[in-house]
C-alpha cells in the first residue's frame, strides 16, 4: 500500500503522502472531535491536559528536536505566556487578543533573550536556559503589579462568540478551544518544517559548519527558531493558566522545565509525533500508576502507597530505559512497528541496527 510513484517534486514535501495517509488523520480528528461524548468529564479534563502539554512540547521540539539547541528552561516561557494572558484579561482585554498577545510577548522576549544565549552551545546553553527558568521563577514574585506576587492570578472565564467558556462549567467548550489552537499550531509547524526556514533549522541541527557553508544564516535561523518555539510554549502557558484556573510562581518551577525536556525526549527528539507521544506519557503516567496501585492493593495485597515520589521515580526509570534501548523515543518504537506492518512478510532483523559511534568533542564546534 505504500508503494507510491512520485511524478512531481511536490510529492516529496506534501503534508500527506496519499489518500490513505490523509484518511488516517481524518479518522484521528474525527475521534478527537467525538471525544467529549466518548469520555467522562474527568477524562476529558485529562485529554485537555494532554493537548496543552503537546502544544508546549511542540514548542520545545522546534528548538531542541529540529534546531538542535537543547533548552532546559522552557517553563519560563510558559510562565510569560500565562501571566501575559491573565494580566491582560484582568485589564479588560478580550480572550483572543490576549492569547495572541501572550504568544507575541513570549516570542519577542524569546528572540531578545536568544541573541546572547544562543552564542553558547550544547551543555552551556542547557545550563543557561536552566538558570533563566530559575530567574523567571523569582521574577514572577518580584513583578507583583503584573503577576500578582506570591498569591498569583486567577483565570477569569473566557467569553467567545457569545459562549462563556470555563474549565469546570463548560469543559467541552474548553476542550474544543484547546483542540482548535493545537490543530492550527500543528499545521503551521508542519508547513514551517517544509519551508526554506524549516529546512535551514534542520541544517543547523545536523552541522552548523556545513549549514554556514551552504549559505544558511545560522544566527538568524537559531533566533527565528527560538522565538517561534517560545511563542508556541507561551500559547501553551496561556491555555494551561485557564486549565489550572490559578497560576503563581509555583506553577512553573524548574522541575516543569526539566519534565518538559524529558517529555520531548521520551516522545522522540526530532519528530512532531514525539511531542504528542511524550505528552500522553507525562499526563497519563501518574494516572496509570495510581490505577496499578489500586489493582495491586485489591488483588495481590501489595501496598506500594507508602513511598512518596513513586510516580516520579517510575517516570525516571522509563526515561532511563528509553535512553539506553531506544534513543529515538516512543516515535522510534512506533516507526519500527509501522515499518514492520508495511513490509509485512519482508521485514528483516537488524534493519534498524545502530552503527557504532564515537563521541565528538563539543569543545570544537
Amino acid at each position, binding site marked *: 500500500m505504500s508503494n507510491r510513484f512520485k511524478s512531481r517534486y511536490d510529492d516529496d514535501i506534501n503534508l500527506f503522502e496519499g489518500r490513505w495517509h490523509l484518511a488516517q488523520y481524518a479518522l484521528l480528528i474525527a475521534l478527537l472531535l467525538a471525544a467529549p461524548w466518548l469520555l467522562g468529564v474527568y477524562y476529558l479534563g485529562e485529554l485537555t491536559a494532554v493537548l496543552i502539554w503537546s502544544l508546549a512540547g511542540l514548542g520545545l521540539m522546534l528548538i531542541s528536536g529540529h534546531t538542535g539547541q537543547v533548552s532546559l528552561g522552557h517553563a519560563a516561557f510558559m510562565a510569560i505566556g500565562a501571566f501575559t494572558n491573565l494580566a491582560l484579561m484582568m485589564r479588560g482585554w478580550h480572550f483572543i487578543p490576549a492569547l495572541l498577545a501572550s504568544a507575541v510577548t513570549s516570542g519577542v522576549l524569546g528572540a531578545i533573550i536568544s541573541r546572547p*544565549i544562543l552564542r553558547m*552551545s550544547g551543555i*552551556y546553553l542547557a*545550563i543557561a536556559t*536552566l538558570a533563566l527558568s530559575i*530567574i523567571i521563577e*523569582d521574577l514572577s514574585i518580584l513583578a507583583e503589579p503584573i503577576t500578582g506576587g506570591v498569591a498569583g492570578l486567577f483565570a477569569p472565564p473566557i467569553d467567545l462568540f457569545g459562549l462563556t467558556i470555563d474549565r469546570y462549567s463548560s469543559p467541552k467548550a474548553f476542550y474544543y478551544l484547546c483542540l482548535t489552537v493545537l490543530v492550527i499550531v500543528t499545521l503551521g509547524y508542519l508547513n514551517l518544517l517544509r519551508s526554506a526556514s524549516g529546512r535551514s533549522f534542520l541544517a543547523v541541527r545536523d552541522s552548523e559548519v556545513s549549514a554556514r557553508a551552504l549559505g544558511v544564516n545560522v544566527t538568524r535561523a537559531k533566533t527565528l527558531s527560538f522565538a517561534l518555539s517560545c511563542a508556541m510554549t507561551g500559547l501553551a502557558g496561556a491555555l494551561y493558566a485557564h486549565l489550572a484556573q490559578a497560576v503563581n510562581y509555583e506553577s512553573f518551577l524548574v522541575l516543569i522545565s526539566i519534565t518538559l525536556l524529558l517529555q520531548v525526549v521520551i516522545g522522540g527528539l526530532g519528530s512532531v509525533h514525539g511531542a504528542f507521544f511524550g505528552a500522553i506519557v507525562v499526563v497519563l503516567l501518574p494516572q496509570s500508576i495510581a490505577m496499578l496501585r489500586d489493582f495491586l492493593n485489591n488483588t495481590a495485597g501489595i501496598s506500594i502507597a507508602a513511598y512518596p515520589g513513586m510516580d516520579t521515580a517510575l517516570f525516571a526509570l522509563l526515561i532511563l530505559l528509553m535512553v539506553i534501548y531506544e534513543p529515538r523515543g516512543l516515535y522510534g518504537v512506533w516507526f519500527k512497528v509501522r515499518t514492520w506492518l508495511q513490509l509485512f512478510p519482508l521485514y528483516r532483523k537488524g534493519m534498524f541496527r545502530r552503527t557504532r559511534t*564515537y563521541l565528538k*568533542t563539543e569543545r570544537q564546534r
Partner: protein
Amino acid sequence: MDILQLLVSGIANGCIYGLLALGFVLIYKASEAVNFAQGDMMMLGAFLGVTFINASYADLPFLIGITLAALLLGLFGYLLDRFVLRAIFGQPQFAMVILTIALGFLIRFVAGVIWGHDPTSLETPFVGQVWMLGELMIPVVDAVIILTTVGLTSILYFFFARTRLGVAMQASSQNQMAAYYMGIPVKRINAIVWALSGVVAAIAGVLFAAKGAVEPSVGLLFGIKAFAAAVIGGLGSLPGALLGGLLVGIVEPFAGRYLPEVGQIAPYLLMLVVLVLRPGGLFAQISQKKV
C-alpha cells in the same frame, strides 16, 4: 568586620560548591559528559557519612567514617558507569544529560525511602568550636572545609597534569576515537573517572552535612548551583571550578544581605553575565572548528 565575617562563611560555602564542581569537571574532562546527578551523588555521600558517623547509626570515628563513605560512593560511581552508563557509550553528550537527570530522580527516591525526608545533620568532633582571629570568628568546620578543598584541588590538578592516567583521561575526552588508536582503554578510563568523582562527591557531601543539614531533595538545587559554578569557571578547568565555586559562594551571602530581592537568584545572574561576556566561561576551552 561584618563584611569579613560574611566573607569567611561565603568562602566555606564556596568551597563546597567548588568541590562539587570539581566532580562535574572531572567527568567532563575525561568523557565530556555532564553528570546532572552529581548533586544527588553528593546527597548520597552525605547520608552515607551520617550513617557511618552519627551516634544513632554506626557510631564510627570521624576519619574512618568519611573514608568508608568515600570508598563506598566511589564503588557506586564505578558500578554506575560499568552497568548503566556504558550502555550509551559513544552517543552524543545530550543522551548522557537526559540519562543522568533521570538517575538523579531515582537516587533521590531511593534515598527518601532509606533515610526518610527529615533534615539530618552530621555529628562532627569539632561541632560548635570556633577559632578567634582578633574579632573575626572562624568556625573550625569552615577551616576544615577550606583546607580539604584546597588540598583536594591541588592533588587532582597534579593528577591530571602530571600522571599517565590523568593525561590519558584528557586524551580520551578530546578525541575518543584517536584515544582508542593510541591504545588507551577508554571505557575503563571512564569507569575510573566516575569512581573518582564519586569519591569527591562523598567528601563534598560529608562536609556539606557537617555544616548544614541534608535531606533527599537537597541535591537538585545545590547541584545546579555547583554546576553553575563549574560553568563560570569554564567546564574542564579544575582551578576554574574552584574559582567559580568561590565566586558563587561569596556572591550568595552578600546578595542576601544587601540585595535581598535577588538573593536567591544571584548565582544564576552571575553565571548568565559571565556566559554572555565569555560564552565558554572564564577559562574557556571551546574553540571554533577550522575547516
